[in-house]
């Protein structure tokens, strides 16, 4: 099982490319802004459901947001 240290994400970059604030993205996927912030910083590892919701809102695949470090 992957530790959180092994999981990286491009959520902040992808969100910024779409001119979305953390708060707006949070509202769309029905979580708090803090949750988006902690996911972006790698502090909180989201569930598969939340990862899929984020991918859907950003119009990318989950693998484009999250990836395991080699």
């Amino acid at each position, binding site marked *: 099982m992957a530790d959180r240290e092994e999981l990286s994400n491009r959520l902040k970059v992808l969100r910024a490319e779409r001119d979305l604030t953390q708060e707006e993205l949070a*509202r769309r996927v029905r979580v*708090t*802004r*803090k*949750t988006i912030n*902690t996911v972006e910083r790698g502090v909180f590892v989201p569930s598969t459901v939340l990862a899929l919701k984020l991918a859907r809102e950003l119009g990318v695949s989950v693998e484009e947001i999250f990836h395991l470090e080699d």
Partner: protein
Amino acid sequence: MEGRIELLDRTRRRTLLGFLVAFVAWQAPTIAQEALGAAVSAPVEGGLTILAAVAGVVWLFYAIRLILLRREVARDSEAAAALDDERVRQVRAKSLACAFWSLVVYLAAIRLATFATAIPAGVAALGGLLVAAAAAIAAFLVLDRE
């Protein structure tokens, strides 16, 4: 501009912090009175009683605010979902685990202390309540930080 959910989240944190401080300020003098018994002077006893009474009223204020806040959130399905998202549920579970282990440590300490001195049952019981409640809320506030 701060959104409604962000505002509710901040209000929840502030209310919980007030609830925690008032609860400790209410219970600590009460426990001190129980523990010290007749050893405290009348002015100190009176001071502790007034402090506990004032803190108890403040705690009641925050307890009512928490109930009203919960009702307000429940009426807004979007806010209710966001303020109880998977990270918040994880933080809540960790907070309860922290409270459980704090209580275990407290009970072990009380048990050990009874070998050295007699501890009134009221002190042990109120202390356990204080430790468990304070640990749960304090852990939530710490873990819920950004």
